[in-house]
Structure formats: structure tokens, C-alpha cells
């Protein structure tokens, strides 16, 4: 009897020890993130005001702002999303629903998984050779957006496939049994039901792309730019213009990198301000992803 209790007590001690270890490990991550945020806030918050958001960079730290870089980030993300989402979702749907399982598709699958792990600067090099020199797209917003689209394409494909896989086979069979063609099954059932997972994947991928610096520097993004790209909306017909696609650009992380590397302490404060903006944008993107997932899960429970 006492033997029994001794063994139980021992096992409960092990339980307790792991509990503590677990808490410590979790705290390491959370405390680091907290410290990082606190550091950014204490450095950059004072710098964050309307003029900072609406001024171009300048030689004088006090007058410098992030207008051209946040506009650049926004436009680049727009191009990236426009290119990566349809390509990635279509490829994901094809691989998951249409492609026959054979050694070719297996090879493609393995390589897509590998592509997701390729260092981002390699994508920069590829884009420099292909988009800038070969297709002569210039060191432009279009080139930058496409480069990041290549970078996140594998993530979007994988996310789409994962989302499709969560749909029970019974739903597919039900749709086919009513006489749907494959496209009708995809269009009316699979895409709508997987939108939560797919959108989450896309947003996570975009929030990775938004912080990328290396590939954009590789293709020749500017670090100092004191003008905005031409407006996509015009007052005269046809009212829209694609001129902005070919404009040079800078993005927030490059602006940060540029400021941090200056000796003047005031510029480092500017960098913290820009970093704060970047973090706010990323966290809001993630919040949107969580919201979408939550709303879809409330509607669809398998």
C-alpha cells in the first residue's frame, strides 16, 4: 500500500517538474517578444505622429518620415497578393483535386515543400536575373511585388492544399453524386468551404513578405526616395493607370535598415518608429487572419 503511494507521489513530482519546465519555456518566448515590443515602443512611440507618416525621408532626422516607404510597402503587397493568390490557389487546387498521383506529382510536391525553405535572398537573385535583366521590368514596384510573390507562392500552395484536405471526402462524394463536374465541386463547395484556411495561409504569407528586406535590396530597391509613384487613379479617362507599377520604390524594412545603419542616434529613433508601424501592420494582418478563421469555423464544423 505505502509502496503504491510512493510510486504515485514520484510520478506526480515528475508531472510537477514538467509543468514548471513548460512554463519557463513558454515565458522565454513571451518575455522576449514583450521586451522587444517595449523597447520599440519606448524608443519609437514619441516619434510616431502624423508628420512622420506624411513626410519623405530627409537628411535631418527630425524632418525625416516614412511616407514613401509605407506607400511602397502597400503597393508591393498589393502586387504580391494579386500575383501569388490566384497562382497559388489554382496550383493548390490542381495538385490536390485534379492531378493524378504519380512520381511526377510526388516530385513536384517535394519540390514545393523545398521551395518554401529556400532563403529569400536566392529569390532576390533569381528575380534580378529573370525579371530585371531578362524581362527588363526594371527595379520597379512590379519587380518587387513579383519577387515577393515567388517567395510566398509555395506557402500559399501548401496552405490551400492543407485547407482542402480538411474537407471530408463525404462532402466531395455528395457533390459528385448529384452530378457535379469537378469544376463545379471546386467552385461551389471546396473553395467556399476552405476559404478560412486558405485566407489564413495567404495572410500569414503576406505578413512574412511584408518584412522581407534582402530580396528587395538584391533587385535594387532604393534606400532613399523622396517622391511617390504616379497615382493609379487619374482624373482623365481611362481613370486608371499602370504607370506606378514601373516606378522605383522603397519599403518599410529597407527604410529601417537604412536608418539603423547611420551613426546619428536620432535616426535610430526614427527606425524604431518605422519598426513600430511595421509591427502594427503585421499584427493587424494576423488579427484579420484570426478573425476570418473564427468566423468560418463558427459556420462550418465538420
Amino acid at each position: 500500500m505505502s509502496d503504491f503511494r510512493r510510486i504515485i507521489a514520484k510520478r506526480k513530482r515528475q508531472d510537477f517538474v514538467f509543468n514548471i519546465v513548460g512554463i519557463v519555456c513558454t515565458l522565454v518566448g513571451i518575455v522576449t517578444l514583450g521586451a522587444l515590443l517595449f523597447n520599440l515602443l519606448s524608443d519609437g512611440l514619441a516619434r510616431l505622429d502624423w508628420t512622420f507618416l506624411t513626410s519623405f525621408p530627409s537628411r535631418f532626422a527630425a524632418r525625416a518620415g516614412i511616407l514613401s516607404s509605407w506607400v511602397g510597402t502597400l503597393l508591393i503587397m498589393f502586387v504580391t497578393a494579386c500575383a501569388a493568390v490566384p497562382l497559388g490557389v489554382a496550383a493548390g487546387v490542381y495538385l490536390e483535386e485534379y492531378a493524378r498521383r504519380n512520381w511526377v506529382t510526388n516530385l513536384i510536391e517535394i519540390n514545393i515543400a523545398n521551395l518554401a525553405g529556400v532563403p529569400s535572398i536566392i529569390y532576390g537573385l533569381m528575380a534580378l536575373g529573370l525579371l530585371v535583366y531578362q524581362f527588363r521590368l526594371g527595379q520597379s514596384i512590379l519587380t518587387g511585388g513579383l519577387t515577393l510573390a515567388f517567395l510566398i507562392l509555395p506557402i500559399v500552395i501548401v496552405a490551400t492544399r492543407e485547407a482542402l484536405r480538411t474537407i471530408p471526402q463525404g462532402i466531395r462524394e455528395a457533390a459528385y453524386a448529384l452530378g457535379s463536374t469537378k469544376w463545379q465541386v471546386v467552385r461551389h463547395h471546396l473553395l467556399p468551404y476552405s476559404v478560412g484556411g486558405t485566407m489564413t495561409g495567404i495572410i500569414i504569407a503576406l505578413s512574412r513578405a511584408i518584412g522581407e528586406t534582402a530580396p528587395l535590396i538584391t533587385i535594387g530597391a532604393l534606400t532613399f526616395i523622396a517622391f511617390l509613384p504616379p497615382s493609379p487613379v487619374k482624373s482623365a479617362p481611362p481613370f486608371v493607370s499602370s504607370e506606378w507599377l514601373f516606378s522605383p520604390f522603397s519599403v518599410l524594412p529597407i527604410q529601417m535598415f537604412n536608418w539603423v545603419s547611420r551613426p546619428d542616434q536620432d535616426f535610430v529613433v526614427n527606425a524604431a518608429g518605422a519598426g513600430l508601424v511595421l509591427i502594427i501592420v503585421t499584427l493587424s494582418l494576423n488579427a484579420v487572419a484570426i478573425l476570418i478563421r473564427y468566423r468560418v469555423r463558427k459556420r462550418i464544423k465538420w
Partner: protein
Amino acid sequence: MAEAKMDRQDRTRGGRAEERTRTPVAVQQSDARVAASHPATKAEVQSLNFFYGKLQALKDINIAFPSNRVTAIIGPSGCGKSTLLRCFNRIHDLYPDTRYEGRITLQPSGVNIIDPATDPVEMRMRIGMVFQKPNAFPKSIFENVAFGLRLLGEKRSVIEEKAERALRSAALWDEVKDRLKESAYALSGGQQQRLCIARALATDPEMLLFDEPTSALDPIATARIEELILTLKEQVTIIIVTHNMQQAARVSDDTAFLYLGELVEFSRTTKMFENPSNKLTEEYITGHFG
């Protein structure tokens, strides 16, 4: 599609008389006395072999399924009863490495369902299926029933009318008429299964396949589905796969007993359960194995 529509008209007009003259081959073989009182054949399975890759799941199956009756397929797990059922709407085509041999002739049109030249999409529109687990779409109750009609490109008014009729046929209308816009997932399991039946009925199929439709349901929901199946045979020919022998006895007119991919016995349900002609059937029915 045009063919499917014509076929339906055929059935309602002069098709009946012609159907009656046809004598089902397999029934003749197993029980001539029964054959005489049998109505026309709806679907005739002839020398059907089915393969999953190298594995032969069905071996030389010959059955004539009579029109406007309920035929049960029974047998132990893995005997091929679901496999046989799923040949009728070519759902096997969705999976690689599956192969059919032989014929399944759908009457009165005489089309061979499993002919590679036959369009599986058309067969699925003409032959509805209800699955083991209720698999309603995560859409509204109305959209679930309307989906098959939308595939046919029906007009809005037609869709509404036929959806209501299907829900009435599935004995679900009174429970859902005030909440057609609500999610189908708000319904209970039994209601969802009746919704799946309504969904299959909406497009006026010639046959309805039930694959163990009550195995995920409680006894009360099961009783309602069984009741429903008995009323539905007026409008449509029904095949039901079940592992519940009492259910087969309750709902079916004829029963096929499959064992290890072969048809052991096919006869009137009353005869099968009271006086089976095969030793193996008797042992299965009395619970000696399975």
C-alpha cells in the same frame, strides 16, 4: 442530359407497360416462382466484376433489380455490398486504379451504366445516392436541396417548387419550412439524413441508392428513415445496403446476400429470412458468422 429528360417522360407515358413484359434473368435463375409475380426490371447487373487495383472486390455478380421496389444488399463487412452499390453511380470513378467489367443495364433506356463511354455525370444525375454519414453541405437547408436543381440550370421558380416537393417527400417540410435559410448543420443527425434524401430526390432520379443510411442514427431517427423508404418506392426504385438484417427484413421486398465479393443468394426478402435456399445464407441470417 437531353437523354435523361426524354427518359423521364418515357417513364411517365408509355414506358410502364413495356417494362412489365421484361423478365429479370437472375431472378429466373434463383426462383422461378417469384419471377412470375415480379414487376419489370429497373437495373440489370450482368457478369459484373470490379477491381480495386489487383484486388477483385466483386466476382461475376448477376442480379436484376425490380422496378419500384426496395432491394436490400446484405452481407458481412468487406463482402462488397457498398462496392456494388457504388458501381451504380460510378462513384468509383473518382478514385484511381478502379476497374469495372460486365454490364449494368438501366431500363428502360438500356444504357450500360459502367460502359466507359457512358458519362458518369449523367448517371449521377439520374441515380441519386444517400450515404452512410449524413453529409449535408455547410449551406442553408434550402441550398442543400436546391443544389442538384441548380446544376440542371433550372429557373428560380422551378427550383423553389421542386425543393418544396422534395422536402415534403422526405417528410422534412413541416420541420424546416420556417427556417429554410438556416444552416443545415443546425438540424439533428436524423433530420440531416432526411435532408440528404430530399437533396437526392429533388432532381427526380430514376433510382435511389442508400449506403447504410441509418448506421449513424438513433433508433427513432432510424425508424423515420425506414418509414420514408417504404413510401418512396412508389416514385423510385431503391437499393439499400445494410448490415442490419432486421432493417433488411423490415424495408425490403427483395434481398441479395453477398459474401466475399460473390452473390450467394438473391430472392424475395420473406423467403430469404424464412426459408433461405443456401446454407451460407442461413448461417449468416441466424448469426453464426458476420
